[in-house]
């Protein structure tokens, strides 16, 4: 028996409690964070899967909640990522200036997330949205850079305002703030307006082209334990809003008969495709491991947008599964990087090397996460990418297919880079003594996420069954899954994930037997490598980690700054506008300001009076 209201209240109460507790003892406060997030996740997952969450409101005035499978799915994923990340807090909060605020804001933002996913009214959705934006905005500057928070807030605010605009347009048209009724009964140009404004909000939150600039800045500079939350959980809010817009609003737009898709949705899919390509190309040339993963989040956001805009039940299921798979993969990868950053103090790949010798478990966690991220079986990412490919191929979307395949192959390139540069290779002398494996409390969530990454890739049918409920709720066909046989049927083929995993295991066993039967190898050190018979004594000279894909980067590096330049120019224009306003209103003479205010008021009220 759990009520959403109770859960939110528990989170708010424990956030206040942890504020004071952390002040007394940061470890105890962090433990409280772990327990409350774990409690919320467990009760959500348990009651959510059994459809017994209670939505009645007894205490909070004015709030109304509604249980939807869509909201529950998102809420469970996000709460899971939150609860896993909270295990990192005991080791990280001490490094931050306002450690009590850190724990408090962390819990408050989870409360906001819960509210946003379970509310039934747009005004409340906006309220919770703002709660998340404001809490996270104060969390991000606790990391490396303050300006990161500014750019995060800028884009988030643009998204929120755009959503607010959409809400008001919808209200004037429909006369109700209710999510389900409101969106369904929209029509005409108002529907187009709402569609666009909601998508702007979704894109800004998801970090999809062209509203992606904040993503690497915020992800790269956020506190290490908060980056997994940002990438694995919070950007999924954008996916939630995008789902509302893409699937519930039907703007009037021409149908493209060749591919049986509305024009508006095709444009959105193209934007998603651009986002995939752009994120991939930028991730390939990034040196900071966290920023690299941030760009990969952008690319995966593109996949999610493509999946939802295809209006196909297979793609839809693929999109929802991708949200889960990417949340797990990106949380795993970011947590592994965070563990490395805690032990070494840097996330720059050019400064690291050979961490595997000291942190093998972290390495395995990262390896499994990137296998899932690259969409290679037997991990979760493969299932979702397979479903999305099915729909893309079935509809014959050539140009989107280019981006989808490019992103899929490109992801091998960029995920391999941290693996090679950061974990593999010679052990650099500065890390030989100081680095050791991450503490056990940090390994627990990482191992859990690794196991889940595998589980989602081997036995996806349980989760796909839940996704089918969402599909039905949204008015689409459920995905054909055969449960005792554990197979999934797409548009043009059948997938048997458990079989793939089993055969892969069999292959590895065979290879292992061959390996073990043969003569034992002679162990040599990593410095004893083929160097064309030259004597090299220092590790840095043999470790190849700078400019890994230089020949490829050279082909496109001229064009990489185009988008940032555009936004810089825009920012300059905004600054100038601000200066003008300042000049007009903030001058020494009060009369001038009063004059302008009166003038503007008069202008605004021109027709009314």
């Amino acid at each position: 028996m759990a009520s959403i209201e109770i859960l939110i209240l528990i989170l708010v109460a424990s956030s206040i409690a942890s504020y004071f507790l952390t002040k007394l003892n940061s470890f105890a406060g962090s433990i409280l964070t772990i327990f409350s997030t774990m409690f919320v996740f467990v009760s959500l997952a348990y009651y959510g899967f059994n459809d017994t969450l209670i939505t009645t409101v007894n205490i909070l005035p004015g709030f109304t909640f509604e249980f939807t499978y869509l909201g529950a799915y998102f809420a469970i994923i996000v709460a899971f990522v939150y609860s896993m990340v909270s295990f990192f807090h005991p080791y990280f909060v001490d490094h931050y200036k306002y450690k009590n605020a850190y724990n408090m804001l962390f819990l408050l933002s989870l409360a906001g997330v819960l509210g946003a996913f379970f509310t039934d009214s747009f005004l409340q959705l906006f309220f919770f949205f703002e709660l998340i934006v404001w809490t996270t905005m104060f969390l991000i500057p606790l990391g490396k850079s303050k300006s990161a928070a500014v750019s995060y807030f800028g884009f988030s605010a643009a998204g929120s305002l755009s959503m607010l605009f959409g809400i008001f347009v919808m209200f004037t048209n429909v006369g109700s703030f209710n999510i389900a009724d409101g969106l369904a009964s929209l029509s005409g140009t108002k529907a187009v307006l709402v569609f666009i404004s909601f998508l702007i909000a979704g894109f800004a939150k998801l970090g999809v082209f062209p509203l992606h600039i904040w993503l690497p800045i915020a992800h790269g500079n956020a506190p290490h334990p908060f980056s997994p939350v940002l990438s694995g959980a919070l950007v999924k809010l954008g996916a939630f809003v995008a789902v509302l817009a893409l699937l519930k609003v039907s703007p009037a737009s021409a149908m493209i008969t060749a591919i049986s898709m509305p024009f508006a949705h095709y444009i959105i899919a193209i934007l998603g495709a651009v986002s995939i390509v752009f994120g991939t190309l930028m991730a390939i040339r990034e040196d900071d491991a966290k920023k690299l993963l941030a760009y990969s989040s952008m690319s995966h956001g593109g996949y999610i947008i493509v999946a939802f805009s295809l209006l196909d039940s297979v793609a839809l299921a693929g999109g929802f599964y991708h949200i889960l798979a990417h949340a797990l993969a990106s949380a795993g990868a970011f947590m592994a990087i965070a563990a490395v950053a805690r032990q070494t103090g840097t996330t720059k790949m050019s400064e690291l090397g050979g961490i595997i010798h000291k942190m093998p478990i972290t390495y395995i966690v990262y390896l499994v996460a990137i296998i899932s991220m690259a969409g290679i079986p037997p991990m979760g990412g493969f299932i979702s990418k397979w479903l999305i490919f099915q729909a893309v191929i079935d509809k014959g979307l050539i140009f989107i297919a280019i981006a989808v395949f490019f992103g899929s192959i490109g992801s091998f390139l960029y995920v391999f880079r941290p693996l090679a540069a950061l974990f593999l290779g010679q052990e650099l002398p500065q890390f030989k003594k100081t680095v050791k494996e991450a503490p056990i409390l940090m390994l627990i969530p990482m191992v859990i996420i690794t196991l889940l990454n595998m589980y989602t890739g081997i036995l996806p049918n349980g989760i796909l069954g839940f996704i089918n409920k969402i599909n039905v709720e949204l008015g689409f066909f459920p995905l054909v899954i055969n449960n005792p046989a554990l197979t999934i049927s797409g548009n043009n083929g059948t997938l048997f994930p458990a079989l793939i995993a089993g055969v892969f295991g069999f292959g590895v066993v065979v290879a292992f037997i061959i390996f073990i039967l043969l003569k034992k190898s002679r162990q040599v050190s990593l410095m004893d490598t083929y160097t064309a018979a030259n004597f090299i004594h220092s590790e840095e000279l043999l470790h190849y980690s700078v400019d890994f894909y230089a020949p490829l980067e050279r082909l496109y590096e001229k064009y990489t700054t185009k988008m940032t330049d555009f936004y810089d120019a825009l920012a300059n224009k905004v600054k100038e506008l601000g200066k003008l306003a300042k000049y007009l209103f903030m001058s020494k003479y009060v009369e001038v300001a009063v004059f302008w205010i009166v003038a503007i008021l008069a202008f605004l009220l021109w027709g009314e009076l």
Partner: protein
Amino acid sequence: MKSTKFTEPRKLSKEEVDRKWWEIGDFFRRNSLWMLMYCTGCCAIELPPAMTSAYDMERLGMGPMATPRQADILLISGYLSVKSLRRVIYTYEQMSEPKYVVGLGSCPINGGIYHDSHAVINQLDQYIPVDTYVAGCMPNTESVMNGFVDLMEQIRDKTAKGWIKYKENNEWYKKNQKAALGEVIIHDEFHE
């Protein structure tokens, strides 16, 4: 008359099993010799005809390889200066066992025309074990091919035991190397 009764097959001892395997391995090894060519001397000019259509080394299963790890034969073609001897020793030690060394030309045998140079060593087998020498300055291509066939026969007869000798008499080799080179592995501003 022999007993027709079932006799327990004689249990092969571990050494014998190993020896059997080793003989099978020798068959593969002598039919697939991969070379790492250390071509610093003039004798290297005899290798292109040996490899291309004139003599076609590939029909013996031989071929060039890129790194010492993959190679079976270390082919020293011509004179070895003191500096390159260090690299040869380093390379030889990187090769995976079993490994063979072939010296081409008279310089690795006795110094050849460089016998009185301060920079060229005179006798390669003092520093690393050499399985086959091909004499001549420079040896013509037939003798190069003949040398390789000799090596194959040595492998078959189990006389190509240079790498075992190097392991067993390692101290002696190390002493010789030290006497000629000082240190094998150097560490200066060009080798950091």
